[in-house]
């Protein structure tokens, strides 16, 4: 069965779906790394918080009797994006801003501390158990039928891929066309100089965290709807994989993050499909190690100019 095209196609669809989610998270890592040169280890937790805000909003909408699904999705999306971006903003403001200009490792330890803190904060407030949710969108279309093996593309998967495409396009335009994008590029290259030509560096960095968190919250919401279950710990693995994606694509590079996300999703899906499901995380970690050792600039990254 494994050698049929249908099986391959199935894995491809799974991989693209998963990769979309990783890609959305990876953008947050890559943007923050680009602009302040730190690994925002707590970004996975932001993703997790996004999924929790989403599940709570879904439940409330259920109680309120909002049954028209597109409206419910829109409300959840906006709530989750807004509340989660405030977490992203607060994270930078409280924990990272005072440490600008400190050694990288100090910033990384702070980020790890924030990650542990946020994980346990959610665990204390919402409990350690799994949070299951009924599927919101069900059904799908049959893409291919090979004897009795049916390859289908669910509406959920379609939505994930489409939303990711739309967000990434919008996001790319934003970086290319808006003042924020230009200010970000200036800050990435030379923060002091950017300040000297009147760019509000603090606000640019804050907005970077806000945008990254908003994208991660969308990923969190889609993760919740796709898998139907979340817990306070999902941010750890998803975060590491998304970070791997960012590194694979070339950390600091936005197209790289998207590409890396897709590749990690595909690798994970094919590895699970053709080798062993158990070791799929080992696959992701091995890629992380291999890329960092042999090509630290990743696929699309620029050679690293050491900057302060």
């Amino acid at each position, binding site marked *: 069965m494994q050698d049929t095209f249908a099986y391959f196609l199935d894995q491809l669809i799974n991989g693209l779906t998963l990769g979309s989610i990783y890609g959305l998270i990876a953008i947050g890592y890559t943007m923050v790394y680009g602009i302040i040169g*730190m*690994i925002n280890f707590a970004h996975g937790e932001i993703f997790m*918080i996004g999924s*929790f*805000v989403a*599940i*709570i*909003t879904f*439940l*409330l909408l259920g*109680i309120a009797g909002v049954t028209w699904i597109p409206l419910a999705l829109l409300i959840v999306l906006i*709530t989750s994006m*807004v*509340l989660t971006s*405030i977490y992203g*903003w607060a994270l930078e403001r409280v*924990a990272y801003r005072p*440490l600008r*200009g*400190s*050694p*990288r*490792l*100090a*910033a*990384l*330890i*702070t980020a*790890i*501390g*924030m990650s*542990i*803190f*946020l*994980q*346990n*904060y*959610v665990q*204390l*407030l*919402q*409990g350690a158990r799994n*949070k*299951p*949710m009924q599927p919101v969108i069900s059904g799908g279309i049959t893409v291919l039928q090979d004897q009795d093996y049916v390859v289908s593309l669910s509406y959920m998967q379609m939505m994930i891929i489409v939303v990711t495409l739309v967000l990434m396009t919008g996001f790319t335009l934003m970086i290319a066309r808006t003042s924020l994008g230009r200010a970000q590029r200036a800050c990435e290259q030379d923060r002091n100089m950017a300040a000297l030509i009147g760019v509000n560096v603090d606000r640019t960095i804050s907005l970077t965290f806000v945008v990254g968190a908003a994208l991660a919250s969308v990923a969190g919401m889609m993760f919740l709807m796709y898998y139907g279950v979340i817990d306070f710990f999902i941010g*750890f693995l998803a975060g*590491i994989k998304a*970070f791997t994606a960012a*590194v694979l694509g070339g950390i600091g590079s936005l197209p790289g993050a998207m590409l890396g996300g897709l590749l990690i999703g595909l690798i994970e899906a094919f590895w699970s499909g053709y080798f*062993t499901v*158990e*070791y799929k*995380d*080992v696959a992701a*970690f091995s890629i*992380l*190690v291999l890329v*960092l*050792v042999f090509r630290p600039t990743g696929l699309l990254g620029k050679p690293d100019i050491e900057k*302060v």
Partner: protein
Amino acid sequence: MTATTASGITVRPLDVGAMVKEAGITALVIFALSAALVGFETTDIPGGIGINTRFDDVAVVVILGFVGRIALVLLRQHRPGPVLIGAPLMAVAMLLMLLAEPLFGPETAVAIAPFVPFQDPVVLWGLLIVTVIILVRAVLSRRHLDSEETAEAREVRMDSIAAQVQRAARFLGPLLLVLAVIFPFMPMANRQMLDIGILVITYIMLGWGLNIVVGLAGLLDLGYVAFYAVGAYSFALLATYFDYSFWICLPFAGLMAALAGVILGFPVLRLRGDYLAIVTLGFGEMIRVILLNWYEFTGGPDGLSGIPRPSFFGIAEFSRRSENSFHGMFGLEYSSLQRIIFLYYLILAMAMVVNLFTMRIRKLPISRAWEALREDETACRSLGINPRNTKLTAFGIGAMFAGFAGSFFATRQGFISPESFTFIESAVILAIVVLGGFGSQIGVVVAAALLIGLPEFFRELQQYRMLAFGMAMVLIMLWRPAGLLAHREPTIRLFGRGGRAEAES
């Protein structure tokens, strides 16, 4: 209309509008942060999840945020007056709520319960501590209005405190050691206390081991637990399959861990600091996943059990019925405590070996090389230092000590499974090193006692343990990125901290 105090500080007229606006924004942000996650609680109900509300808690945190911010603004503007009145009132109110039962009896406690915020008194205790800290700051700012400390001055002061602690450590260390040695014979040393003692010393040993890697060599290792696991599993496998005794398995396990450290470290140690950290994290998780899934060898999630307990140096056993039992040999009553006490001394001795080793190695050239590498790798190359081998040494030594500690863990528990070797464990050990002040031996002891011992005593704190770890790591980095007790022997200092940061840019 600005008044100038005698000490030369200008006290600007208070801009109430700006202050309220600032506090209002804080309250708004706190509201947004807490609205979903605090305001609603997802609960398990049959067939799915339900939802509870906690709006009162949201209201309380928002108000506290508002009041707290106003207090901070007032302190910043050198107007501690209102804080000096308000903070004690709040503290007393909180204390009364917390101690209602012992003070006024259960009826009162039940009567006021609806007005007491938060389900768990621990939160209120935490807030009480914050209130007291603000109060102390208010009192201090009253005392020396004149000395608004610059970052530079604070750094100098903290450094001298750290230096004093290090000097004190010279006699504090031996004193603590003596206390540790006589501890099992003190009246309060029951089974539970000894178990806590063993646990704390295990973490002290791990902290000291990691300290060599992080504190001395400056390599952030987020996967330290991997070597702990390698040690524990090597020990368990050797001891159960080949029936070797503890004293043969122990060095082997250490060696295996060191080997793992060298093999893993070799390809990655040339990476830059933060990448290296992430890679070690990856290794830690990889080893855990392998342990979890290599069923034939490691027992998978079930782990390995029936790991033999250590004997009394191979000459006597700690068991009730045995040919050569420990109690028989020394003519004592049998007591299960004997083995515990033996384990206690065993880990104490192992930890002391690590300590002595570290003290010794600090004086060796390799330690200078580590220090130099921390500062400037390129310069080191031109001095003929081989960065990779130098780092590898630290990595290997650290791993070996983790392996020893892992062996001890295995033999003490008699059972190991991958669950004991998660990233959280690495984070805990790292937190101990960070809190202890990178490279300070006595700091690790204090930190381990605080982070491991305290929550063991106060079980109610257990839940909040990791939360506090995370917060502590952040606060310490914000307060003093070099580490709480970090103190450099005065090598030459050309620039102050500010100056150096500028020179780098």
